[in-house]
Protein backbone atom coordinates (compact mmCIF):
# COMPACT_ATOMS: atom_id res chain seq x y z
CA UNK A 1 0.00 0.00 0.00
CA UNK A 2 2.77 2.39 0.96
CA UNK A 3 5.24 1.49 -1.77
CA UNK A 4 3.53 2.94 -4.89
CA UNK A 5 2.75 6.20 -3.11
CA UNK A 6 6.40 6.79 -2.38
CA UNK A 7 7.09 6.73 -6.09
CA UNK A 8 5.27 10.01 -6.55
CA UNK A 9 7.78 12.86 -6.68
CA UNK A 10 7.76 15.07 -3.64
CA UNK A 11 6.65 18.07 -5.67
CA UNK A 12 3.45 16.27 -6.74
CA UNK A 13 2.58 15.41 -3.20
CA UNK A 14 3.29 18.96 -2.05
CA UNK A 15 1.16 20.37 -4.84
CA UNK A 16 -1.68 17.99 -3.99
CA UNK A 17 -1.51 19.00 -0.35
CA UNK A 18 -1.47 22.67 -1.30
CA UNK A 19 -4.42 22.12 -3.66
CA UNK A 20 -6.38 20.44 -0.88
CA UNK A 21 -5.47 23.26 1.47
CA UNK A 22 -6.57 25.85 -1.08
CA UNK A 23 -9.83 23.98 -1.59
CA UNK A 24 -10.36 24.00 2.17
CA UNK A 25 -9.64 27.71 2.58
CA UNK A 26 -11.43 28.85 -0.52
CA UNK A 27 -13.80 26.17 -1.90
CA UNK A 28 -14.54 26.46 -5.59
CA UNK A 29 -18.14 27.45 -4.95
CA UNK A 30 -16.74 30.73 -3.60
CA UNK A 31 -15.09 31.19 -7.01
CA UNK A 32 -17.06 34.36 -7.90
CA UNK A 33 -15.61 36.04 -4.83
CA UNK A 34 -12.01 35.24 -5.75
CA UNK A 35 -11.15 38.42 -7.70
CA UNK A 36 -12.37 40.54 -4.80
CA UNK A 37 -10.14 38.67 -2.38
CA UNK A 38 -7.24 39.19 -4.76
CA UNK A 39 -8.01 42.90 -4.90
CA UNK A 40 -8.33 43.18 -1.14
CA UNK A 41 -4.70 43.88 -0.15
CA UNK A 42 -4.40 46.67 -2.71
CA UNK A 43 -7.74 48.12 -1.67
CA UNK A 44 -6.69 48.11 1.98
CA UNK A 45 -3.36 49.78 1.21
CA UNK A 46 -5.01 52.55 -0.77
CA UNK A 47 -7.56 52.73 2.03
CA UNK A 48 -4.78 54.17 4.18
CA UNK A 49 -4.94 57.26 2.00
CA UNK A 50 -8.66 57.52 2.57
CA UNK A 51 -8.12 57.25 6.32
CA UNK A 52 -5.47 59.95 6.00
CA UNK A 53 -7.85 62.21 4.10
CA UNK A 54 -10.45 61.80 6.83
CA UNK A 55 -7.84 62.79 9.40
CA UNK A 56 -6.97 65.84 7.32
CA UNK A 57 -10.64 66.72 7.06
CA UNK A 58 -11.01 66.48 10.80
CA UNK A 59 -7.94 68.60 11.47
CA UNK A 60 -9.02 71.23 8.96
CA UNK A 61 -12.14 71.97 10.97
CA UNK A 62 -10.22 72.85 14.13
CA UNK A 63 -8.49 76.15 14.69
CA UNK A 64 -5.29 76.77 16.58
CA UNK A 65 -5.50 78.68 19.83
CA UNK A 66 -2.43 80.90 19.67
CA UNK A 67 -2.36 81.33 23.46
CA UNK A 68 -2.30 77.67 24.46
CA UNK A 69 -1.09 76.14 21.17
CA UNK A 70 -3.86 73.62 21.36
CA UNK A 71 -6.36 72.86 18.64
CA UNK A 72 -9.98 73.67 19.31
CA UNK A 73 -12.41 70.98 20.40
CA UNK A 74 -15.35 72.11 18.33
CA UNK A 75 -15.60 72.31 14.58
CA UNK A 76 -15.47 75.60 12.73
CA UNK A 77 -14.97 76.72 9.16
CA UNK A 78 -12.63 79.54 10.18
CA UNK A 79 -9.60 77.94 8.48
CA UNK A 80 -11.37 77.77 5.15
CA UNK A 81 -12.35 81.40 5.49
CA UNK A 82 -8.75 82.36 6.19
CA UNK A 83 -7.41 80.43 3.20
CA UNK A 84 -9.95 82.00 0.87
CA UNK A 85 -9.51 85.55 2.09
CA UNK A 86 -5.79 85.93 2.81
CA UNK A 87 -3.86 87.29 -0.15
CA UNK A 88 -0.76 85.22 0.58
CA UNK A 89 -2.49 81.92 -0.13
CA UNK A 90 -4.05 83.30 -3.27
CA UNK A 91 -0.63 84.33 -4.49
CA UNK A 92 0.90 80.92 -3.74
CA UNK A 93 -2.01 79.10 -5.34
CA UNK A 94 -1.93 81.14 -8.52
CA UNK A 95 1.84 80.76 -8.72
CA UNK A 96 1.46 76.97 -8.50
CA UNK A 97 -1.42 76.77 -10.97
CA UNK A 98 0.32 79.00 -13.48
CA UNK A 99 3.52 76.97 -13.00
CA UNK A 100 1.73 73.68 -13.53
CA UNK A 101 0.15 74.98 -16.73
CA UNK A 102 3.43 76.23 -18.20
CA UNK A 103 5.34 73.13 -17.13
CA UNK A 104 2.72 70.83 -18.65
CA UNK A 105 2.80 72.61 -22.00
CA UNK A 106 6.60 72.80 -22.22
CA UNK A 107 7.04 69.21 -21.03
CA UNK A 108 4.59 67.85 -23.59
CA UNK A 109 6.29 69.80 -26.38
CA UNK A 110 9.63 68.20 -25.54
CA UNK A 111 8.29 64.78 -24.57
CA UNK A 112 6.34 64.23 -27.77
CA UNK A 113 9.27 64.24 -30.23
CA UNK A 114 11.30 62.20 -27.73
CA UNK A 115 8.64 59.52 -27.42
CA UNK A 116 8.01 59.59 -31.16
CA UNK A 117 11.65 59.08 -32.05
CA UNK A 118 12.01 56.38 -29.41
CA UNK A 119 9.05 54.43 -30.74
CA UNK A 120 9.69 54.92 -34.46
CA UNK A 121 13.46 54.66 -34.79
CA UNK A 122 14.55 51.50 -36.62
CA UNK A 123 17.82 51.45 -34.69
CA UNK A 124 17.58 49.42 -31.49
CA UNK A 125 20.80 50.99 -30.20
CA UNK A 126 19.32 54.48 -30.42
CA UNK A 127 16.13 53.27 -28.78
CA UNK A 128 18.07 51.79 -25.90
CA UNK A 129 20.15 54.93 -25.54
CA UNK A 130 17.03 57.09 -25.39
CA UNK A 131 15.47 54.77 -22.82
CA UNK A 132 18.55 54.80 -20.61
CA UNK A 133 18.84 58.61 -20.88
CA UNK A 134 15.23 58.72 -19.72
CA UNK A 135 15.38 56.21 -16.91
CA UNK A 136 18.62 57.36 -15.34
CA UNK A 137 17.29 60.72 -14.12
CA UNK A 138 13.88 59.16 -13.41
CA UNK A 139 15.50 56.71 -10.99
CA UNK A 140 17.85 59.19 -9.35
CA UNK A 141 15.30 61.15 -7.42
CA UNK A 142 14.43 64.78 -7.17
CA UNK A 143 16.83 65.87 -4.47
CA UNK A 144 19.94 64.67 -6.23
CA UNK A 145 18.80 66.19 -9.51
CA UNK A 146 18.03 69.51 -7.84
CA UNK A 147 21.49 69.33 -6.31
CA UNK A 148 22.94 68.91 -9.79
CA UNK A 149 21.08 72.02 -10.93
CA UNK A 150 22.47 73.95 -7.97
CA UNK A 151 25.98 73.11 -9.18
CA UNK A 152 25.13 74.04 -12.77
CA UNK A 153 23.13 77.20 -12.21
CA UNK A 154 24.78 78.60 -9.07
CA UNK A 155 26.62 81.91 -8.99
CA UNK A 156 29.92 80.08 -9.37
CA UNK A 157 28.24 77.37 -11.38
CA UNK A 158 28.96 75.89 -14.77
CA UNK A 159 26.78 78.29 -16.73
CA UNK A 160 28.11 81.40 -15.07
CA UNK A 161 31.69 80.17 -15.49
CA UNK A 162 31.06 79.71 -19.18
CA UNK A 163 29.51 83.15 -19.42
CA UNK A 164 32.50 84.57 -17.56
CA UNK A 165 34.82 83.22 -20.26
CA UNK A 166 33.08 85.35 -22.85
CA UNK A 167 33.09 88.34 -20.54
CA UNK A 168 29.55 88.31 -19.22
CA UNK A 169 29.26 89.06 -15.51
CA UNK A 170 27.49 86.40 -13.40
CA UNK A 171 23.71 86.30 -13.67
CA UNK A 172 21.50 85.10 -10.86
CA UNK A 173 20.02 81.98 -12.36
CA UNK A 174 18.78 80.32 -9.20
CA UNK A 175 16.10 81.08 -6.64
CA UNK A 176 13.62 82.48 -9.11
CA UNK A 177 10.45 81.31 -10.82
CA UNK A 178 12.03 80.24 -14.14
CA UNK A 179 14.58 78.11 -12.28
CA UNK A 180 11.78 76.25 -10.49
CA UNK A 181 9.82 75.76 -13.72
CA UNK A 182 12.94 74.58 -15.52
CA UNK A 183 13.65 72.04 -12.79
CA UNK A 184 10.05 70.85 -12.94
CA UNK A 185 10.15 70.35 -16.70
CA UNK A 186 13.27 68.24 -16.33
CA UNK A 187 11.66 66.26 -13.51
CA UNK A 188 8.49 65.66 -15.53
CA UNK A 189 10.02 64.69 -18.87
CA UNK A 190 10.44 60.96 -18.07
CA UNK A 191 6.88 60.69 -16.75
CA UNK A 192 5.49 62.38 -19.85
CA UNK A 193 7.52 60.29 -22.31
CA UNK A 194 6.59 57.05 -20.56
CA UNK A 195 2.90 57.92 -20.67
CA UNK A 196 3.08 58.97 -24.33
CA UNK A 197 5.12 56.04 -25.66
CA UNK A 198 2.44 53.31 -25.40
CA UNK A 199 -0.06 55.52 -27.21
CA UNK A 200 2.41 56.23 -30.00
CA UNK A 201 3.30 52.55 -30.32
CA UNK A 202 -0.37 51.86 -30.93
CA UNK A 203 -0.42 54.07 -34.04
CA UNK A 204 0.49 51.89 -37.04
CA UNK A 205 3.30 53.51 -39.02
CA UNK A 206 1.45 52.48 -42.20
CA UNK A 207 -1.05 55.22 -41.43
CA UNK A 208 1.67 57.82 -41.69
CA UNK A 209 3.03 56.28 -44.90
CA UNK A 210 -0.49 56.30 -46.30
CA UNK A 211 -0.93 59.96 -45.43
CA UNK A 212 2.35 60.90 -47.07
CA UNK A 213 1.71 58.83 -50.18
CA UNK A 214 -1.55 60.71 -50.52
CA UNK A 215 0.52 63.87 -50.61
CA UNK A 216 0.44 65.16 -47.05
CA UNK A 217 3.66 66.74 -45.80
CA UNK A 218 4.97 65.63 -42.41
CA UNK A 219 3.51 68.66 -40.65
CA UNK A 220 0.09 67.85 -42.04
CA UNK A 221 0.46 64.15 -41.26
CA UNK A 222 1.47 65.03 -37.74
CA UNK A 223 -1.38 67.47 -37.30
CA UNK A 224 -4.18 65.30 -38.72
CA UNK A 225 -3.00 61.73 -38.13
CA UNK A 226 -0.44 61.35 -35.35
CA UNK A 227 -1.64 64.02 -32.96
CA UNK A 228 -5.33 63.00 -32.86
CA UNK A 229 -4.44 59.31 -32.51
CA UNK A 230 -2.07 59.96 -29.62
CA UNK A 231 -4.85 61.48 -27.54
CA UNK A 232 -4.82 58.75 -24.85
CA UNK A 233 -1.12 59.37 -24.34
CA UNK A 234 -1.54 63.13 -24.24
CA UNK A 235 -4.29 62.78 -21.64
CA UNK A 236 -2.25 60.43 -19.47
CA UNK A 237 0.89 62.52 -19.76
CA UNK A 238 -0.89 65.84 -19.32
CA UNK A 239 -2.70 64.64 -16.21
CA UNK A 240 0.36 63.19 -14.56
CA UNK A 241 2.54 66.18 -15.34
CA UNK A 242 0.03 68.81 -14.31
CA UNK A 243 -0.94 67.18 -11.01
CA UNK A 244 2.64 66.30 -10.07
CA UNK A 245 4.00 69.75 -10.85
CA UNK A 246 1.07 71.55 -9.23
CA UNK A 247 1.81 69.75 -6.00
CA UNK A 248 5.58 69.46 -6.03
CA UNK A 249 7.57 70.31 -2.94
CA UNK A 250 11.28 69.62 -3.45
CA UNK A 251 12.01 71.71 -6.53
CA UNK A 252 10.31 74.93 -5.36
CA UNK A 253 12.03 74.45 -2.01
CA UNK A 254 15.53 73.81 -3.37
CA UNK A 255 15.60 75.77 -6.64
CA UNK A 256 13.27 78.50 -5.39
CA UNK A 257 15.20 78.98 -2.18
CA UNK A 258 12.12 79.81 -0.12
CA UNK A 259 11.06 82.73 -2.30
CA UNK A 260 9.07 80.73 -4.84
CA UNK A 261 6.89 78.55 -2.65
CA UNK A 262 4.26 76.35 -4.21
CA UNK A 263 1.18 75.12 -2.34
CA UNK A 264 2.99 72.07 -0.98
CA UNK A 265 5.65 74.30 0.60
CA UNK A 266 2.99 76.48 2.20
CA UNK A 267 1.35 73.36 3.62
CA UNK A 268 4.65 72.08 4.98
CA UNK A 269 5.36 75.43 6.61
CA UNK A 270 1.97 75.45 8.29
CA UNK A 271 2.65 72.05 9.80
CA UNK A 272 6.31 72.36 10.72
CA UNK A 273 7.11 76.08 11.07
CA UNK A 274 4.01 77.81 12.40
CA UNK A 275 2.59 74.52 13.74
CA UNK A 276 -0.89 75.53 12.65
CA UNK A 277 -2.12 72.03 11.81
CA UNK A 278 -5.65 73.15 11.08
CA UNK A 279 -4.65 75.68 8.48
CA UNK A 280 -2.18 73.25 6.90
CA UNK A 281 -4.84 70.56 6.77
CA UNK A 282 -7.27 72.99 5.17
CA UNK A 283 -4.75 73.86 2.49
CA UNK A 284 -4.01 70.15 1.87
CA UNK A 285 -7.67 69.33 1.52
CA UNK A 286 -8.26 72.17 -0.90
CA UNK A 287 -5.26 71.07 -2.94
CA UNK A 288 -6.61 67.51 -3.01
CA UNK A 289 -9.97 68.90 -4.10
CA UNK A 290 -8.49 70.97 -6.92
CA UNK A 291 -6.40 68.00 -8.09
CA UNK A 292 -9.33 65.58 -7.95
CA UNK A 293 -11.65 67.96 -9.80
CA UNK A 294 -9.02 68.34 -12.50
CA UNK A 295 -8.55 64.59 -12.81
CA UNK A 296 -12.28 63.89 -12.51
CA UNK A 297 -13.21 66.32 -15.27
CA UNK A 298 -10.57 64.90 -17.61
CA UNK A 299 -11.59 61.29 -16.84
CA UNK A 300 -15.24 62.14 -17.48
CA UNK A 301 -14.54 63.92 -20.74
CA UNK A 302 -11.82 61.74 -22.21
CA UNK A 303 -11.42 58.57 -20.13
CA UNK A 304 -8.26 57.56 -18.33
CA UNK A 305 -6.02 57.46 -21.43
CA UNK A 306 -2.77 55.60 -20.91
CA UNK A 307 -3.32 55.89 -17.16
CA UNK A 308 -5.94 53.15 -17.38
CA UNK A 309 -5.20 49.89 -15.63
CA UNK A 310 -6.87 46.62 -16.45
CA UNK A 311 -9.18 46.05 -19.35
CA UNK A 312 -11.06 49.29 -19.33
CA UNK A 313 -10.66 52.10 -21.81
CA UNK A 314 -9.80 50.08 -24.89
Amino acid sequence: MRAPRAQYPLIWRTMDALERFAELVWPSRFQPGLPYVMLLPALVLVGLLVVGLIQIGDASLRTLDTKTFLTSENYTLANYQRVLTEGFFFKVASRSLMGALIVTLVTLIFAFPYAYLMVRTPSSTLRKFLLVALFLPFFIGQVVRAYGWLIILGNQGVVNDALGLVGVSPIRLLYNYPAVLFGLVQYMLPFAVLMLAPALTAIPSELESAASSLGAGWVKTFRYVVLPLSKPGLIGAGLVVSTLSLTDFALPAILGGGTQDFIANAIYDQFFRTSDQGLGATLSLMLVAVGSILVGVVFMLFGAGTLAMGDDGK
Partner: protein
Amino acid sequence: MSDSTSKSLVIWAFVATAIVMLSAPTIVVLGASFTAGNIITFPPDGLSLKWYASIAQASDLRQAFVRSLIVATICTLIAIPAGTLAGIALVKYRVRFARSIQIYLLLPFTIPLIGSGIGMMLAFGKIGVLGSLWPVGIACCVINLPFMIWAVTASARNLSPDLELAAANCGAPPLQRFLYITLPAVLPGVITGSLLMFILALNEFLVSLLLVDARIVTLPVQIYNSIRSIITPDLAAISVVFIVCAGLVIALLDRLVGLDFFLKSK
Protein backbone atom coordinates in the same frame (compact mmCIF):
# COMPACT_ATOMS: atom_id res chain seq x y z
CA MET B 1 15.28 70.70 -48.07
CA SER B 2 13.30 67.52 -48.49
CA ASP B 3 10.34 66.65 -46.38
CA SER B 4 11.97 63.88 -44.37
CA THR B 5 15.17 65.81 -43.58
CA SER B 6 13.22 68.76 -42.21
CA LYS B 7 11.19 66.34 -40.14
CA SER B 8 14.22 64.67 -38.60
CA LEU B 9 15.89 68.05 -38.06
CA VAL B 10 12.94 69.33 -36.04
CA ILE B 11 12.63 66.10 -34.07
CA TRP B 12 16.33 65.93 -33.35
CA ALA B 13 16.45 69.56 -32.23
CA PHE B 14 13.87 68.79 -29.53
CA VAL B 15 15.34 65.42 -28.62
CA ALA B 16 18.89 66.74 -28.33
CA THR B 17 17.73 69.54 -26.00
CA ALA B 18 15.81 67.00 -23.95
CA ILE B 19 18.82 64.68 -23.69
CA VAL B 20 21.07 67.52 -22.51
CA MET B 21 18.46 68.61 -20.00
CA LEU B 22 17.95 65.07 -18.71
CA SER B 23 21.60 64.16 -18.35
CA ALA B 24 23.19 67.44 -17.25
CA PRO B 25 22.57 67.09 -13.48
CA THR B 26 23.76 63.48 -13.44
CA ILE B 27 26.96 64.23 -15.31
CA VAL B 28 27.75 67.29 -13.23
CA VAL B 29 27.19 65.49 -9.93
CA LEU B 30 29.37 62.61 -11.12
CA GLY B 31 32.12 64.99 -12.18
CA ALA B 32 31.97 67.17 -9.08
CA SER B 33 32.26 64.16 -6.79
CA PHE B 34 35.82 63.49 -8.02
CA THR B 35 37.09 66.97 -7.22
CA ALA B 36 40.31 67.34 -5.27
CA GLY B 37 39.33 70.80 -4.04
CA ASN B 38 37.28 71.67 -1.01
CA ILE B 39 34.44 73.43 -2.73
CA ILE B 40 32.03 72.07 -5.21
CA THR B 41 32.97 72.89 -8.79
CA PHE B 42 32.43 71.54 -12.22
CA PRO B 43 34.66 70.81 -14.09
CA PRO B 44 36.36 69.35 -11.00
CA ASP B 45 39.40 71.02 -9.50
CA GLY B 46 41.85 68.13 -9.96
CA LEU B 47 40.88 64.51 -9.55
CA SER B 48 40.75 62.58 -6.32
CA LEU B 49 38.69 60.04 -4.47
CA LYS B 50 39.02 61.83 -1.16
CA TRP B 51 35.31 62.66 -0.89
CA TYR B 52 34.48 59.00 -1.35
CA ALA B 53 36.86 58.20 1.47
CA SER B 54 35.15 60.85 3.56
CA ILE B 55 31.64 59.46 3.01
CA ALA B 56 32.87 55.97 3.78
CA GLN B 57 33.89 57.36 7.17
CA ALA B 58 30.65 59.25 7.83
CA SER B 59 28.47 56.93 9.86
CA ASP B 60 25.40 59.20 9.66
CA LEU B 61 25.35 59.00 5.87
CA ARG B 62 25.92 55.26 5.93
CA GLN B 63 23.12 54.73 8.41
CA ALA B 64 20.80 56.94 6.40
CA PHE B 65 21.55 54.85 3.33
CA VAL B 66 20.86 51.61 5.19
CA ARG B 67 17.54 53.07 6.39
CA SER B 68 16.62 53.95 2.82
CA LEU B 69 17.43 50.39 1.78
CA ILE B 70 15.21 49.02 4.56
CA VAL B 71 12.34 51.30 3.56
CA ALA B 72 12.67 50.29 -0.09
CA THR B 73 12.77 46.59 0.82
CA ILE B 74 9.66 46.79 3.00
CA CYS B 75 7.87 48.72 0.28
CA THR B 76 8.75 46.17 -2.39
CA LEU B 77 7.90 43.14 -0.26
CA ILE B 78 4.41 44.50 0.36
CA ALA B 79 3.87 45.74 -3.17
CA ILE B 80 4.69 42.42 -4.88
CA PRO B 81 1.77 40.34 -3.55
CA ALA B 82 -0.69 43.23 -3.31
CA GLY B 83 0.01 44.61 -6.78
CA THR B 84 0.34 41.25 -8.53
CA LEU B 85 -2.93 39.86 -7.22
CA ALA B 86 -4.79 43.10 -7.92
CA GLY B 87 -3.36 43.36 -11.42
CA ILE B 88 -4.31 39.78 -12.30
CA ALA B 89 -7.77 40.21 -10.81
CA LEU B 90 -8.41 43.35 -12.84
CA VAL B 91 -7.45 41.77 -16.15
CA LYS B 92 -8.51 38.14 -15.79
CA TYR B 93 -11.87 38.44 -14.16
CA ARG B 94 -14.98 40.40 -14.75
CA VAL B 95 -15.14 42.47 -11.64
CA ARG B 96 -18.20 44.41 -10.64
CA PHE B 97 -17.65 48.14 -10.33
CA ALA B 98 -14.40 47.59 -12.25
CA ARG B 99 -14.34 51.25 -13.28
CA SER B 100 -14.82 52.55 -9.76
CA ILE B 101 -12.22 50.16 -8.40
CA GLN B 102 -9.79 51.36 -11.04
CA ILE B 103 -10.35 55.00 -10.18
CA TYR B 104 -9.98 54.13 -6.50
CA LEU B 105 -6.71 52.29 -7.14
CA LEU B 106 -5.44 55.35 -9.03
CA LEU B 107 -6.00 57.51 -5.93
CA PRO B 108 -2.29 57.41 -4.99
CA PHE B 109 -1.55 59.17 -8.29
CA THR B 110 -4.42 61.62 -8.16
CA ILE B 111 -4.08 62.67 -4.54
CA PRO B 112 -1.14 65.07 -4.33
CA LEU B 113 1.88 63.57 -2.59
CA ILE B 114 1.84 66.25 0.06
CA GLY B 115 -1.80 65.38 0.80
CA SER B 116 -1.08 61.64 0.96
CA GLY B 117 1.98 62.28 3.09
CA ILE B 118 0.27 64.59 5.56
CA GLY B 119 -2.74 62.29 5.75
CA MET B 120 -0.63 59.24 6.53
CA MET B 121 1.44 61.30 8.96
CA LEU B 122 -1.72 62.18 10.88
CA ALA B 123 -3.09 58.64 10.64
CA PHE B 124 0.16 56.94 11.71
CA GLY B 125 0.61 59.60 14.39
CA LYS B 126 -2.81 58.82 15.79
CA ILE B 127 -1.99 55.16 16.31
CA GLY B 128 1.44 56.14 17.62
CA VAL B 129 3.75 54.32 15.20
CA LEU B 130 5.65 57.31 13.87
CA GLY B 131 9.35 57.05 14.59
CA SER B 132 9.87 53.57 13.17
CA LEU B 133 10.80 52.70 9.62
CA TRP B 134 8.04 50.30 8.62
CA PRO B 135 5.33 52.98 8.34
CA VAL B 136 7.61 54.81 5.92
CA GLY B 137 7.93 51.61 3.88
CA ILE B 138 4.16 51.11 3.82
CA ALA B 139 3.62 54.75 2.87
CA CYS B 140 6.09 54.49 -0.02
CA CYS B 141 4.28 51.34 -1.14
CA VAL B 142 0.88 53.05 -1.08
CA ILE B 143 1.92 56.11 -3.06
CA ASN B 144 3.60 54.09 -5.83
CA LEU B 145 1.27 51.06 -5.89
CA PRO B 146 -0.34 52.03 -9.23
CA PHE B 147 3.06 51.53 -10.90
CA MET B 148 3.11 47.92 -9.69
CA ILE B 149 -0.48 47.20 -10.70
CA TRP B 150 0.04 48.90 -14.02
CA ALA B 151 3.14 46.82 -14.80
CA VAL B 152 1.34 43.59 -13.92
CA THR B 153 -1.77 44.41 -15.94
CA ALA B 154 0.42 45.23 -18.92
CA SER B 155 1.80 41.67 -18.81
CA ALA B 156 -1.42 39.97 -17.85
CA ARG B 157 -3.18 41.36 -20.87
CA ASN B 158 -0.94 39.25 -23.12
CA LEU B 159 -2.00 36.07 -21.37
CA SER B 160 -4.58 34.23 -23.38
CA PRO B 161 -7.39 32.78 -21.22
CA ASP B 162 -7.36 29.75 -23.53
CA LEU B 163 -4.03 28.65 -22.04
CA GLU B 164 -5.57 28.33 -18.60
CA LEU B 165 -8.61 26.59 -20.01
CA ALA B 166 -6.34 24.14 -21.80
CA ALA B 167 -4.48 23.45 -18.56
CA ALA B 168 -7.76 22.94 -16.76
CA ASN B 169 -8.84 20.56 -19.52
CA CYS B 170 -5.73 18.51 -18.93
CA GLY B 171 -6.71 18.26 -15.29
CA ALA B 172 -4.68 20.99 -13.64
CA PRO B 173 -6.37 22.17 -10.46
CA PRO B 174 -6.71 25.93 -9.78
CA LEU B 175 -3.58 26.51 -7.72
CA GLN B 176 -1.44 24.65 -10.24
CA ARG B 177 -2.91 26.72 -13.06
CA PHE B 178 -2.08 29.86 -11.14
CA LEU B 179 1.48 28.82 -10.33
CA TYR B 180 2.41 27.27 -13.67
CA ILE B 181 0.44 29.32 -16.18
CA THR B 182 -0.69 32.68 -14.82
CA LEU B 183 2.28 33.60 -12.68
CA PRO B 184 5.03 32.90 -15.25
CA ALA B 185 3.01 34.88 -17.81
CA VAL B 186 2.89 37.98 -15.62
CA LEU B 187 6.43 37.57 -14.29
CA PRO B 188 7.95 40.29 -16.53
CA GLY B 189 5.38 42.71 -15.15
CA VAL B 190 6.07 41.64 -11.59
CA ILE B 191 9.81 42.10 -12.05
CA THR B 192 9.39 45.49 -13.72
CA GLY B 193 6.95 46.63 -11.08
CA SER B 194 9.05 45.53 -8.14
CA LEU B 195 12.20 47.16 -9.52
CA LEU B 196 10.24 50.38 -10.02
CA MET B 197 8.82 50.20 -6.51
CA PHE B 198 12.26 49.56 -5.03
CA ILE B 199 14.06 52.40 -6.75
CA LEU B 200 11.24 54.89 -6.26
CA ALA B 201 11.06 54.08 -2.55
CA LEU B 202 14.83 54.35 -2.26
CA ASN B 203 14.59 57.87 -3.69
CA GLU B 204 11.34 58.90 -2.05
CA PHE B 205 11.80 62.30 -0.52
CA LEU B 206 8.62 64.14 0.45
CA VAL B 207 6.76 61.29 2.14
CA SER B 208 9.97 60.34 3.95
CA LEU B 209 10.44 63.93 5.06
CA LEU B 210 6.97 63.96 6.59
CA LEU B 211 7.14 60.57 8.26
CA VAL B 212 10.66 60.46 9.69
CA ASP B 213 12.05 62.24 12.70
CA ALA B 214 15.62 63.31 13.36
CA ARG B 215 16.61 59.84 14.56
CA ILE B 216 15.53 57.94 11.48
CA VAL B 217 16.22 60.23 8.51
CA THR B 218 16.51 58.48 5.17
CA LEU B 219 19.23 59.38 2.72
CA PRO B 220 17.25 61.75 0.44
CA VAL B 221 16.08 63.68 3.50
CA GLN B 222 19.63 63.79 4.81
CA ILE B 223 20.88 65.20 1.52
CA TYR B 224 18.07 67.75 1.46
CA ASN B 225 18.91 68.92 4.98
CA SER B 226 22.59 69.27 4.05
CA ILE B 227 21.89 71.15 0.82
CA ARG B 228 20.17 73.81 2.84
CA SER B 229 23.18 74.40 5.06
CA ILE B 230 26.51 74.10 3.23
CA ILE B 231 27.11 72.35 -0.04
CA THR B 232 30.29 70.30 0.29
CA PRO B 233 31.61 67.82 -2.26
CA ASP B 234 30.85 64.86 0.00
CA LEU B 235 27.20 65.42 -0.94
CA ALA B 236 28.15 64.87 -4.56
CA ALA B 237 29.90 61.65 -3.62
CA ILE B 238 26.89 60.36 -1.70
CA SER B 239 24.63 61.37 -4.59
CA VAL B 240 26.72 59.14 -6.81
CA VAL B 241 25.51 56.23 -4.69
CA PHE B 242 22.02 57.00 -5.97
CA ILE B 243 23.28 57.25 -9.52
CA VAL B 244 24.94 53.85 -9.18
CA CYS B 245 21.74 52.33 -7.74
CA ALA B 246 19.74 53.80 -10.63
CA GLY B 247 22.24 52.37 -13.10
CA LEU B 248 22.03 48.95 -11.48
CA VAL B 249 18.25 48.90 -11.62
CA ILE B 250 18.26 49.93 -15.27
CA ALA B 251 20.77 47.20 -16.09
CA LEU B 252 18.63 44.65 -14.23
CA LEU B 253 15.48 45.82 -15.97
CA ASP B 254 17.16 45.54 -19.33
CA ARG B 255 18.56 42.10 -18.55
CA LEU B 256 15.44 40.58 -17.05
CA VAL B 257 12.60 42.09 -19.06
CA GLY B 258 14.09 44.48 -21.60
CA LEU B 259 13.52 48.22 -21.44
CA ASP B 260 11.18 47.93 -24.43
CA PHE B 261 8.57 46.76 -21.95
CA PHE B 262 7.62 50.40 -21.45
CA LEU B 263 6.98 50.97 -25.12
CA LYS B 264 4.30 48.33 -25.51
CA SER B 265 1.08 49.69 -26.89
CA LYS B 266 -2.03 49.77 -24.79
